[in-house]
């Protein structure tokens, strides 16, 4: 039983990081990055390719995953910086589709649709993490570190400026704040964390393929974000807890097997629509969706 809970905990940690880092961009800075899952995927692919093909030690691959996602985050902000909010969101979404298309078609590097199998369990300073409990502890540490980092950032004066950029970018600019650089930094930090989560994911599932980083995961991340609330890291944690656990509970109800799957999807989407209708700020949200 503990192994089962550990694995659920691992998933919660991974999705908490994904949703929390999306919150950093979306909730705090107002960058509606609908391509967030692409960066999650970039991290997963980087880590998997480095460890499987090049036998790079886990820790190096782990940080490389964040770095690669971060670099792409910077490139995306730089080239889309002139677009207005909605269009930035759409361009980011298109980037996600594009990333999946590249994962699918760059076969020599990503194995295309076959995916990358046999991603090793992490080995940190000679200590190999094999048990689910050990991995859960590691994932928890990473999650705690990422949230501590994001908390330091958002609670600081820097965090206030990010929120100022969200509320009124021109007003922030008039106060002498370099809005473009702030957006870049924020998105790099956000995508870096998503990349780390990707690495955690790849070494947990030990097999990745392009379709793991597509719309369904984006919906999960957005649902967590919205259920938890914008501009609240605590909300993202709570959201991840709720959204990962509820569908798991369905497994234990006496429902015919072939009904469970679609039912789970229906529950997910019903929660999403319901929360938008009834409590659009989510549980802990501080700001309205713009």
């Amino acid at each position, binding site marked *: 039983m503990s192994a089962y809970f550990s694995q659920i905990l691992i998933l919660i940690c991974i999705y908490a990081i994904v949703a929390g880092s999306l919150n950093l961009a979306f909730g705090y800075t107002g960058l509606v990055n609908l391509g967030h899952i692409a960066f999650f995927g970039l991290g997963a692919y980087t880590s998997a390719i480095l460890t499987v093909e090049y036998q790079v030690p886990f820790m190096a691959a782990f940080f490389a995953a964040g770095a690669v996602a971060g670099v792409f985050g910077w490139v995306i902000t730089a080239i889309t910086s002139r677009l207005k909010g909605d269009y930035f969101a759409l361009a980011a979404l298109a980037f996600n589709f594009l990333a999946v298309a590249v994962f699918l078609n760059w076969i020599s590097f990503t194995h295309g649709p076959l995916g990358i199998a046999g991603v090793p369990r992490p080995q940190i300073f000679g200590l190999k993490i094999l048990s689910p409990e050990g991995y859960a502890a590691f994932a928890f540490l990473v999650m705690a570190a990422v949230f501590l*980092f994001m908390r*330091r*950032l958002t609670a*600081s*004066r*820097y*965090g*206030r*400026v990010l*929120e*100022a950029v*969200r*509320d*009124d970018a*021109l*007003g*922030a*600019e*008039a*106060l*002498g*704040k*370099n*809005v*473009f*650089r*702030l957006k870049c*930094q924020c998105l790099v*930090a956000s995508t870096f964390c998503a990349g780390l989560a990707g690495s955690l994911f790849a070494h947990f599932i030990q097999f990745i393929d392009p379709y793991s980083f597509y719309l369904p995961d984006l919906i999960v991340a957005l649902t967590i974000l919205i259920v938890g609330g914008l*501009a609240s890291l605590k909300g993202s944690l709570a959201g991840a807890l709720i959204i990962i656990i509820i569908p798991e509970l369905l497994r234990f109800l006496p429902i015919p097997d072939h009904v469970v799957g679609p039912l789970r999807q229906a529950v997910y989407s019903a929660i999403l629509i319901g929360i938008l209708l009834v409590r659009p700020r989510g549980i802990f949200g*501080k*700001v309205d969706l713009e």
Partner: protein
Amino acid sequence: MLQIENITKNFGGVEAIKGSDFSVVEGRTTALIGPNGAGKTTLFDIISGFVRPDTGRVIFAGEELNKLQPFQRANLGISRTFQQVRLFRYLTIMDHLIMSEDSFDTKFWRNIFKRPRVERSKYEAVLEQFGIERTLDTVVSDLSYGQRKLLQIAMALRRPHKLLMLDEPVAGVNSVVQAKIENLLLDLKSKGETILLIDHDMNFVRRLADHVIALDAGVVIVDGTPEQVLNDSRVLEAYLGV
């Protein structure tokens, strides 16, 4: 201090500014007047960098600004307010005051590792000085219009600056607040601030300005002392449309 040289700006075929030239002298208060649509706010936006002119130059403290971003101009010492108050609606009064002070808050890593102490009393004094009777932790969306105007002026003043640009500082506020703002500005003027302001209220301008520039349809029509300009027939014509 500030020179505007031959600025033109075209918005989709409409000439908003047609070759304007004027300058703002250090230590004096200059007022831009003109009817609606004369291009006053557009000129402000050109000076602070939010709008790029089609031709011409903006020179500030001997430096050409044309290639600089708005935030760079702000950091050179141009501090401005907006006609429509621009505040950050989910942040508190204190957040606003702190943010306008310096640029420590844009340093990514230093903010993670360092958390400077905040002296609340300092900011409470600011509120008192500007007569904003609210607590520091009030979210700005709860403020009245007059209070927001005052807060915006307070922020502009707290920024390290050489030139203060005020876009209609007393428009839309009641007479009490208006008097407050006017006294504040007179006080600043006596301390030698360089101010460039836009306003419609002729009496207000007459009491405050050392120098008045009248704009109409994107052209500077008169440039001189308040008495000269406000009694000029062209100005009356532009305003009354006769």
